[in-house]
């Protein structure tokens, strides 16, 4: 048995592991940095919490790696239903914990994070079933399967997590080539809708019109006021630098002032002086801390580690022999890419602000653990995916 395990171990993707560990190391270092100026002892020790969860995650990673991923696939239906139940439970006051107006936690865990994994597993399983026809029916079914948990997450509210499911789903649909005409049409419609919304916000700001029409146009976007504000800040970054544009501005200053070599570890001024609010510097805006202290060299390193990570996930997909494994890996790659891209792009003002953590680096225990388990499953695909599915069954 050990001989077989050793054989399996040789199939483990080393680059994937290396990149993950590299990013986690960055995470621990910069969570330490960003919390070093906090008064609260417990907050200063936040990097230890991250390290702990990384160790637990690594154990889970290997445990998942040695467990055939097809088992996960088989259970994905049950997992999906269970996830929906928990997502509903978390919304019920008394069960779900509310922090800063968002009801996201249940027993200290954010169920929306594993929900991403479950949705990917569910879609991968569904798309790889031979009996499932890849037509319009599947397309709408996928929309429903993603839409229901997305909506439940959206009412927490957690726009970022809900939103990140969309590109993940789209990439998986594209890879599985589901209802191509419908798929491309909806992509087109989505782009049109996005431009219309941005156009409206632009017009409201820049074109002279009576207040009633302004209000009517804003209502037509079906967005909440704070979302409108974020888009507004994105379009007009200099409008309210002390108000809604503050975080964006400060993170941009942090990144920009870092320069090529950075200011040196533990020497970032933006978080140290509190211009980058401490409430976001260790999670959503950790990239700003990193980029300020490690400079362009540091950000480049992180981006290359992400490239290595995502490419090795896709390489696993490439080498995998069955659709389920392939789709799962693609979904995971899409998820990580979306997280990384949106997070970094918002830090430097290329995208509107959405609260999305940077995988492995941002502080967030459920998220880190989920990501490690997910990558563990990807390793499982690396190890077991080259065998015939039939042999497993």
């Amino acid at each position, binding site marked *: 048995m050990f001989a077989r395990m050793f054989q399996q171990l040789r199939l483990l993707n080393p680059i994937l592991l290396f990149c993950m560990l590299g990013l986690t190391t960055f995470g621990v270092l910069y969570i330490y940095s960003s919390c070093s100026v906090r008064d609260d002892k417990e907050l200063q020790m936040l990097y230890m919490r991250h390290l702990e969860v990384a160790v637990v995650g690594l154990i889970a990673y290997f445990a998942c790696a040695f467990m055939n991923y097809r088992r996960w696939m088989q259970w994905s239906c049950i997992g999906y239903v269970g996830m929906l139940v928990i997502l509903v439970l978390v919304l019920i006051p008394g069960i779900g914990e509310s922090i800063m107006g968002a009801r996201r936690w249940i027993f200290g865990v954010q169920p929306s994070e594993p929900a991403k994994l479950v949705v990917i597993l569910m879609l991968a399983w569904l798309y790889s079933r031979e009996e499932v026809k890849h037509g319009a029916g599947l397309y709408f079914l996928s929309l429903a399967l993603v839409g229901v948990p997305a909506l439940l997450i959206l009412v927490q509210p957690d726009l970022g997590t809900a939103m990140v499911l969309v590109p993940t789903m789209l990439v998986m649909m594209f890879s599985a080539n589901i209802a191509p005409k419908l798929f491309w049409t909806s992509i087109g419609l989505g782009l049109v809708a996005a431009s219309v919304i941005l156009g409206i916000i632009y017009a409201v700001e820049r074109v002279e019109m009576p207040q009633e029409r302004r209000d009517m146009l804003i209502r037509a976007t079906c967005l909440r006021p704070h979302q409108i504000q974020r888009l507004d800040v994105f379009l007009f970054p200099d409008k*309210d630098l*002390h*108000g809604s544009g503050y975080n964006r501005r400060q993170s941009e200053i942090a990144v920009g002032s*870092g320069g090529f070599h950075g200011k040196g570890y533990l020497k970032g001024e933006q978080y140290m*002086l509190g211009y980058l609010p401490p409430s976001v510097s260790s999670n959503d805006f950790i990239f700003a801390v990193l980029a300020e202290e490690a400079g362009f060299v540091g950000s480049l390193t992180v981006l290359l580690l992400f490239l290595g990570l995502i490419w090795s996930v896709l390489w696993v997909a490439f080498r995998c022999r069955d659709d389920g494994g392939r789709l799962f890996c693609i979904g995971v790659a899409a998820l990580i890419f979306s997280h990384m891209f949106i997070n970094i792009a918002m830090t*430097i003002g290329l995208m509107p602000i959405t609260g999305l953590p940077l995988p492995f680096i941002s502080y967030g225990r459920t998220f880190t653990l989920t990501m490690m388990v997910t990558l563990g499953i990807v390793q499982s695909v690396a190890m077991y995916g080259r065998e015939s599915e039939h042999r497993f069954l």
Partner: protein
Amino acid sequence: MDGYGEKRVVSSWRIAGFALAVMLGIIYLIVSLYHVQVEQTSGFSEDQLRQSLRRVQVPGPRGRIFDRNRVCLADNRPSYCIAFYVEELRQRGRWANTIRHVNAKIDELALTLGVPRQISEAAVTNHVMKTLPMPLLAWRDVSQETLAKWAELAGDFPGVDVYVQPERAYPYGSLAAHVIGYVKRDKPKEQKEPINGEMPERAHFYLPEMFGASGIEFAYNNQLTGQLGEQSIQVDARGYKHSVWMGRPSVVGRDITLTLEVGVQHEVERMLRNRRGAGVVIDVRSGEILAMASSPTFDLNAFVPNIRAGIWEELNTDKQLPLFNRAIQGRYAPGSTFKPVTALAALHSPNFNVEETHTCNGVFVLGTMRLRCWNSYGHGEIGFLKAIEQSCNSYFCTIAQEIGYPAIYAQAKALGLGRAAGIDLPSENRGLLPTEKWKEDNLRDRWRVGDTCQIGIGQGLLLTTPLQMAVLTAAVANGGKVYRPYLVAREGLPQVVMTNVWKAGAVELVRQGMREVVMHGTGRRLALSGVNVAGKTGTAEIDVGGVRRKNTWITAFAPFEAPQIAVVMVVEDGESGGQTVAPLVRQVMKTYFGEAAGEPVMATESRVVEVVPEEEDPSEPAAHPGGERGD
């Protein structure tokens, strides 16, 4: 590839396509980061400095002002202000929110510190609109207790800090106020001048420094002014100080040592207290001013830190003109103190015979004009020395008529009248030494003999400042050297402006006359037992809007044998020079010569000692309207 017989819907091409998309996305991020972190980094670094650096000016204190014995007359003291850094208290939305917030904070602080609010809401608005980057000084010059209270709760008020400003302090209050001059502060202004030769990167606002507005503070402002330093204080988002960098150190202004002697100065001022007038004490050997006073005076400390509008208004509308430096700006007819000049002119005139006597019968008649001598009984037959001693108007009118105006004019001019004495103080008056042409141009009247006679006894159109008379007296005392008077020693000083070359014995004779004045004549109240004082009294009658007034003078020098100082004092609305001013000048002399001066020979209380009738009778009615008299 499908050798395993599995249905493959996920083509490898699509995976490769997605991998490519991932790479493009990451390249896009890398390019953007390069743009932000490498190409634009200086801009962002600047932005960061701008928001986290509080640029504070470090005031450069003004130089101090000392008297000749290093007694400090103008010093600096720290004044503690409580300053609001409004930019750090920025509130969301409109500026009105911030202004409201700042006002609320000021009220809150006023309540906690227990000090009344000093700054109006309008001033806060004005500050935010116009001079935002500078500290808003909500309380100036707070007490030590307030400062101690503030220190305890400073942490509760981010964006508020103590600002130390040096303020002028005058240990002697009003002493030498006119000489020292007062300081003012400008409105805050934008610094556009280059600092140390380089233009500041951004426009800086500076709290205005003090500048001298009058007197020495004005005249030597460039030397006294310190140079502002600059400090950068890194503050966190809540306004706490993080670290301090010294940008440019401040430079203390240069100290200035005056020629004044505090003791003499104080005595001159004491003598003039509750009177209107001026006094100048000059060193006849150099032109150094030992004392210069003008009365009424003002308190220099009232101008610090800012003069209250009420006091300013009062000083400016006061009919007695307290801000006016009578010693250099007051134009007075010199009266009989001018007679030594006429005498000197006469001694050099071919038309004058010093042995000749004239008869004084109390009035000098010239055509329709009657010039009254102060002694209405007349001095009878009177000669040169006696005429000086008794200050006989008839005699001097006669000899003035004999020698003619050009001779008097030339002598007066050679002794420095009609031109600024050139003291290092602003707005010195030139007085008036009229020429015939001047009268024609300005009064549309030709020169008459009467004018000559009147000027011969120091009246008529002639106007001098006390300083001019001091320089003149010094020149008579030192044998003809007209020195440029000065308060601050510098290269090229002492400077002889003009040297009079007199006939042998001429000036000695005049000096002898002035000594006689003190010994037997109108200035007997000048006499001291230890020092031989020589001098001349003067009482100039003027007509101010139909009211007759008398400006009373003494010009004196001592010791007679080897003159050191000349003292000139004028008192407006006095009785007569000999009566009113002589005791004052004697007291100044006494202070200057100290032990050596001895005691007054003649008691000041005339009623007790005077056995002889008053040599100058003030109650005597005027002979004719608009007339002038000497004594």
